[in-house]
């Protein structure tokens, strides 16, 4: 046995949701520290002392700081006893990693650019302008500084946003196609790739109208909707979403028992 990991996270979705769900699936108890991203808690000095990159999520375990949500998930599976969350077969493991990268570097950044432009930016924009400027200056990573500046001041260009929407449509179609032969993303076994994708895909059916992005729906992507249902039936989702402070505004019970005609 080792010490309990401490996980610094925001709402249990997107990148924060990945290690949370992996820990729950693995059956590992952890100390949860909620970092309010909309209050820029991740750039405050006390958090930067723990994670100088100022990113969330981050995990402290055995005296080590770990960041990069997908790599943390692999750490969780490798480090702790519990159900295997990665296939043993090398080719399937390659497939699992390929899909996680596709989500991390293509599907999720595109969806989140649209979401940041429509929700995250406006959610923080009404703060005091001087305070906002100071908060942006406190962001240690240049990439994150640019991203926050664009979101807060609504600086994503029409072209960038249109390209992101196009990419979400392409990625959701490819994801649907991949479920043609198997129940799970990397094959016949539930894996970290399902956890990774869930944290991005679950919101898309609910935002089809508000984001004007009809990517995931019963009509367009029926297999993805059934995969989402299989995910909602896992007890780990309920336990992970209990950490939400903003309210996830999704009825897990209804999603888990959705009837498909």
């Amino acid at each position, binding site marked *: 046995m080792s010490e309990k990991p401490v996980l610094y996270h925001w709402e249990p979705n997107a990148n924060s949701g990945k290690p949370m769900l992996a820990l729950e699936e693995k059956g590992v108890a952890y100390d949860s520290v909620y970092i309010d991203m909309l209050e820029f808690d991740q750039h405050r000095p006390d958090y930067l002392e723990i994670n100088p990159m100022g990113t969330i999520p981050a995990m402290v375990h055995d005296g080590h700081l770990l*960041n990069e949500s997908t790599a943390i998930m692999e750490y969780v599976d490798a*480090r702790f006893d519990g159900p295997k969350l990665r296939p043993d077969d090398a*080719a399937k493991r390659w497939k699992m990693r390929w899909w996680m990268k596709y989500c991390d570097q*293509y599907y999720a950044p595109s969806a989140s650019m649209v979401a940041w432009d429509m929700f995250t930016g406006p959610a923080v924009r009404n703060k005091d302008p001087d305070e906002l400027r100071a908060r942006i200056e406190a962001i240690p990573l240049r*990439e994150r500084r640019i991203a926050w500046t*664009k979101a807060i001041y609504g600086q994503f260009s029409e072209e960038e946003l249109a390209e992101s929407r196009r990419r979400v449509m392409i990625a959701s179609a490819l994801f649907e196609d991949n479920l043609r032969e198997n129940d799970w993303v990397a094959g016949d076994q539930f894996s970290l790739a399902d956890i990774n994708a869930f944290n991005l895909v679950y919101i898309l059916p609910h935002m089809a109208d508000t984001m004007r992005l009809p990517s995931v729906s019963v009509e367009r992507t029926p297999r993805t909707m059934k995969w989402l249902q299989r995910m909602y039936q896992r007890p780990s989702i309920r336990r992970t979403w209990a950490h939400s402070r903003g309210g996830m505004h999704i009825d897990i019970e209804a999603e888990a028992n959705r009837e498909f005609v």
Partner: protein
Amino acid sequence: MRTLHINGMTPPALAIAIALNEKGLAFSITQIDWRETPAAFARFSDSPEIAATLEGEFPILVDGMTAVSDSYFVLEYLDDAYPTPRLRPSDAYGQWQLQALARFFGERALPAISTLGVAQVFGGGAAVKALFENATALTSERRDAWLAAAEPTSENAIEESRRKLGLLFDRLDAMLVGGQPWLLGQDYSLSDIAAFALVHPFLDGSLDAEGLAIGEALRLWHERVLARPAVQAALTLAKPAFLPGPEHARWG
């Protein structure tokens, strides 16, 4: 039967060739002229993952019935499928270090090297347009990456790429200044292989290193990796090449 399909010895191809040699795995090389890329790549389109590549069309490793691409994941595939000699730390934290570093290599360094390589070496010129404009085997992003290589590279893109490579060299040097022989400590690993493929072009003169500070610890480490027989053998397989690679992260 194991075949590595390459468009010349690009940094990703070099990393895979080194790993195969380190593992003692026999393989043959299929060289594909970059002009033949669309047709050659179309032959792999039955794998949806390979068809939707983010890194670039080649290298692709065909290992028996399995085809894999995306160089860092190919390195991990090889270590998963052929565990000896082991090229990853045995502990979870060491494995996390490898993967966190690989993310940085793939997302920041590789796009930057591709940008500089295309600007300084590739020289596809106007011919690229005719060959790639209607290359339906490629995703639209990959077609765009090739078509952009037909145009002169902007000063902004070059400056941004140099900045990213500066981050890479600083990070690697910082890992080595304590005197450890390899990036992760006492054991040679996939991190050394992946990093060597990125650093080597600037030290063998393939790419212009002007304005980039390469620290002493990093230079000594490069010599140590270069001296390995597996690396020497990989370097003789094909000429260095630089082609349109992964796009720079769109968020900045």
